Each structure stands twice: as C-alpha cells, then as structure tokens.
C-alpha cells in the first residue's frame, strides 16, 4: 500500500445474519480522489460502506483508514477519525428545521464552540440552506435534501466521504450539481468513495473505478480503463466475470 492510499480492505467478510455479502473483499482506495464503486444489485456495494463505517461488523479480515486499523471501530469512532457517511435515500430529519438538521451533523465535533462557525460556513457554501434555514427539512425538494445531507456530512471536515447513490430520484440538472460538488471536494483534498447505479456517468467524472461482484472486488483501475473494459458490459448484462482479476 502506497502513501496515497487512505482506505484499505483486506479480505473482509461481512453480512447480515446467516447471509454473507462481502466475501473476502480486498481493495485500496486512493487519497484525494473520487472512486466509484459499481457492480450489479446485491454485489455488496452498500454492505461494503456499512462495514467500512462500522455499522456492520466485519466477521473476518482487516480494514485500515488513514494508517490505523479500524476493523472494530463504531460509527462514532469513524466520525472522530475523519470519515462521514451519506447513505442511500432520504436521510434528513423531516420535522426538524434545516438549521437543526445541519447542527446534528456536528454532534461528534470535539470542539463544540466551533459548531456555529461551521454551520455558517456550510450555509455560505450552500446558500439555499441559509435561505431555508428555518423551514422544516421536509419542505425541501429532493435535490435540496441531498445537498443538506452532504453539507451535514461536511460539517466535521471529513477526510473521506462515503456517499451511496446520491443521484437517485434527482433531476439530471441536480445530479450535475451534486457531482460538481463532489469534484470540488476532491480538489480540496477530500477523498470521495461513491456508489452509483448510473455507472457510465459516474465513472466519467471519477478518478478510479472499483467493480464489485458477488462480494469481491473484480476490477480496480483508473476510471477510464474501467469504462472501456469490455468485461463491464458483460458484467451488467449478466454472465459473471472470471474470479479475481485485479489490476492494481
């Protein structure tokens, strides 16, 4: 693993109950880059995020983040170490105001006196959130809710953001906006690990691609190479890949 690697998974196995989803996943995620995870439904993309973030325990294997072993860390410990997680779907608190939703992103902030300033910074960056600060979060449009979730995740100034299918249910214009925000974060040094159903569009703006199939990383390469890899079409049209062809 090079110095430019921020997150590694080494033979990670995890799942729900008797079901095994991640089946010996091994991957290395590069720092300050956008990596898009693609793969068919049930490949283990979301499970990988939950396991990395500590919502789901890894049965075996090892996860490191920013040089430290975080295999047994809780979500709170992952936040403290500089990771944030924006799950799939709608994740706002509908009956709290936009400001209070944002503020909840700072629960884990060690220096609570900085919270006000961080909320201000986020509102300066996403003016729509300032405009709607006092409104119930449920009154926001789908895209605005996603912006709120991203802003809430950024409140702690994370090193790495896990973001699961941010484009779901958004208008094409809004998808562009969210992707532009992710690119801007990357340029500021934040590592983005992204799951996207729209693999082509996501890979086009990514630096790296990671292809998961049946709980294992099949391809790990520069996004352009993944995009042009003939095996991708085969994977998405059914008919699996040959096992473990890693290009490091």
């Amino acid at each position, binding site marked *: 693993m090079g110095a430019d690697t921020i997150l590694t998974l080494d033979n990670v196995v995890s799942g729900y109950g008797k079901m095994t989803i991640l089946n010996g996943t091994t991957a290395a995620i590069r720092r300050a880059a956008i990596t898009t995870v693609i793969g068919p439904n049930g490949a283990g993309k979301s499970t990988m995020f939950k396991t990395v973030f500590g919502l789901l325990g890894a049965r075996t294997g090892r996860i490191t983040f920013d040089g430290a072993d975080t295999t047994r860390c809780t979500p*709170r410990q992952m936040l403290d170490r500089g990771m944030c997680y924006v799950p799939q*779907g709608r994740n706002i*608190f509908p*009956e709290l105001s936009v400001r209070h939703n944002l*503020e*909840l992103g700072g*629960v884990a902030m060690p220096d609570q006196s900085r919270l006000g300033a961080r909320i201000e910074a986020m509102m300066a960056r996403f003016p729509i959130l300032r405009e709607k600060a006092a409104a119930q979060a449920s009154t926001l449009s789908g895209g605005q809710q996603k912006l709120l979730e991203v802003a*809430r995740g950024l409140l702690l100034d994370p090193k790495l953001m896990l973001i699961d299918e941010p484009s779901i249910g958004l208008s094409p214009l809004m998808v562009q906006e969210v992707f532009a925000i992710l690119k801007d974060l990357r340029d500021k040094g934040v590592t983005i690990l992204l799951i996207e159903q729209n693999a082509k569009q996501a890979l086009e703006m990514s630096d790296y691609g990671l292809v998961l199939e049946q709980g294992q990383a099949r391809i790990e390469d520069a996004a352009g190479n993944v995009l042009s890899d003939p095996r991708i079409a085969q994977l998405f049209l059914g008919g699996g890949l040959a096992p473990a062809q890693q290009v490091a």
Partner: protein
Amino acid sequence: MADFLQLLISGLATGAIYALAAIGFTLLWQTSQTINFAQGEFVMLPAFFALVAMTWLGLPFAVAVVIAIVCSMLVLGLMFKVVVVQPLIKQGVLPLVISTIALSVLLKEGVKDVYSAEAQPFPTLFPDVTLSVAGVAVSLAQVGVLVVAFGTIVALQWFLGATRIGRQMQATAQNPTVARILGVPVERMILYTFLINAVLAAMASILISPIYLAKFSNGESLGLAAFVAAIVGGFNQVRGAIVGGLLIGVVDNLAAAYVSTSYRQAVPLILLVAIILFRPQGLLGRREERAV
C-alpha cells in the same frame, strides 16, 4: 351554559392528565417501537410510591411527591428499559407488547397484595376552593391540575425543541439509523425517553389520584384513555397526543353529563373507531412511509 363551561374545564383538566400519559406513550413508540400496554399502571403506581413514603415512612407530602418521581424514574424508567424492553425488543414488537400486558397485571396485582385493594384517599396539591367567575363555579383544584399539566407539557416541548439534547432525542425518534451515523448516542437518547415517560406518568399519577382516589385498578381506564388519546391524536406526534388527550377528557365529561353516565366510557371508543375509519393516521398524525 354555565354547566357546559364547568364541564369543559373539568374535562380539560382530566384531558390534560390523559395527555401526559399519552405523550409518554407516543415518545416510547417513536424512539424505541415500544407499545406500552402497562402505561395505565405506570400512572397508577407512582401514587402508591407516595403513599408508602407518607404512611409507612411518615414523610410529609411534598417529600413523598419527590420520592414518587424518583422511584418512578428508577422503576418505570430505568428498570423497565433494561429488564423488559432491551431483552425483548430484539424478538420483535409483538413479544414486547405481550410482556407489557403481563407487566400491567403484575403491577396491578402487586399493588393490591402489597398495599391494599381499597381505594386510598390521596392529598391534593391545591386547596379545595371553588371560585365563582362570572357566574361559573370554577374549582381551584381543577385549574391547578390544568396549570401543572400544561406547564409540564410546555416544559417538555421546550426541552425537545430548544435544547440540543432534546433535538438529538427528536432525531433518534425520526430516524435512528441516521442519528447513529451522525454520532448521536442513540442508546442514551432512548434511555432519556424512558426516564421522561416515567416522570410524565408520575406527574399524571399525582394529579389524578386526588380526583379518582389511588386504587390498584385505576390503570385500566387510564391506560385505555391514554391509548385512545394517542391514536386519535396521531400516534407519531407529541402534539397529537396533547390534542387527543384533551379531546378525550372533554368528550368523556360531556358524554357523562349529556349522553349517559353508563355509556361515558363508550364515547371515546366510538370516537376511536370513527377516527380509525376516516383518518387512520390520527388528527395530527403523519402517514408513515415504509420502505419495502
């Protein structure tokens, strides 16, 4: 008209007490999917904590009230969560529901065997004076109940909305998974909810026992009133529980006077059926979205 106003005020007073119990009911449901069928007994029991402190230990009423609240927090808050809810919630909602029904029987029979099967007089916090305001006879005790119950509700609403702990509790109720992802100590917030429910039950107990006398079987009607109030108002809304409680109290009182005393208990149930038929999410409730 004067009669009607008197009935309205006494209805609001009992309704405010129902609301206290109903709020606790909805809070437990929201934060921990606990449907507490022992809620009525939770309102019955604290009066007996106070009675034990007064008659067995010879303590003054004011001290007994504090002891009743503290004991409720320990037994109906902490112990209820750790001993009953925590081990059973993993098995699903239904086993927990059945366990709370068992708990209600245990509390009821326990009080009957340990203290007394007779209704016990209970001291009132307020002087039993009746004032005449513009021809309407107003009982100071009822006004006192209204003021204390509303004060408690306002304080709770303030705590939930204006403090950061309160908002973390709301976040836990609205979306526990996301709350956990943001670092909210979800387990602690759930414990706070149980403690708050216990305090609300103790307040309701101390306010209602002077009116109904403290009796082991009080929980049956109180639990039903709280349950109906919570559903009528909207099971997932604190303000729904407030409206539901007041409505049940008033309807119950007016029905006793204008319909029939023997059918007074049926009227809230008829209201319940009507609400479930025409507005299943309750008066102020929000439809719950469920991911399949």
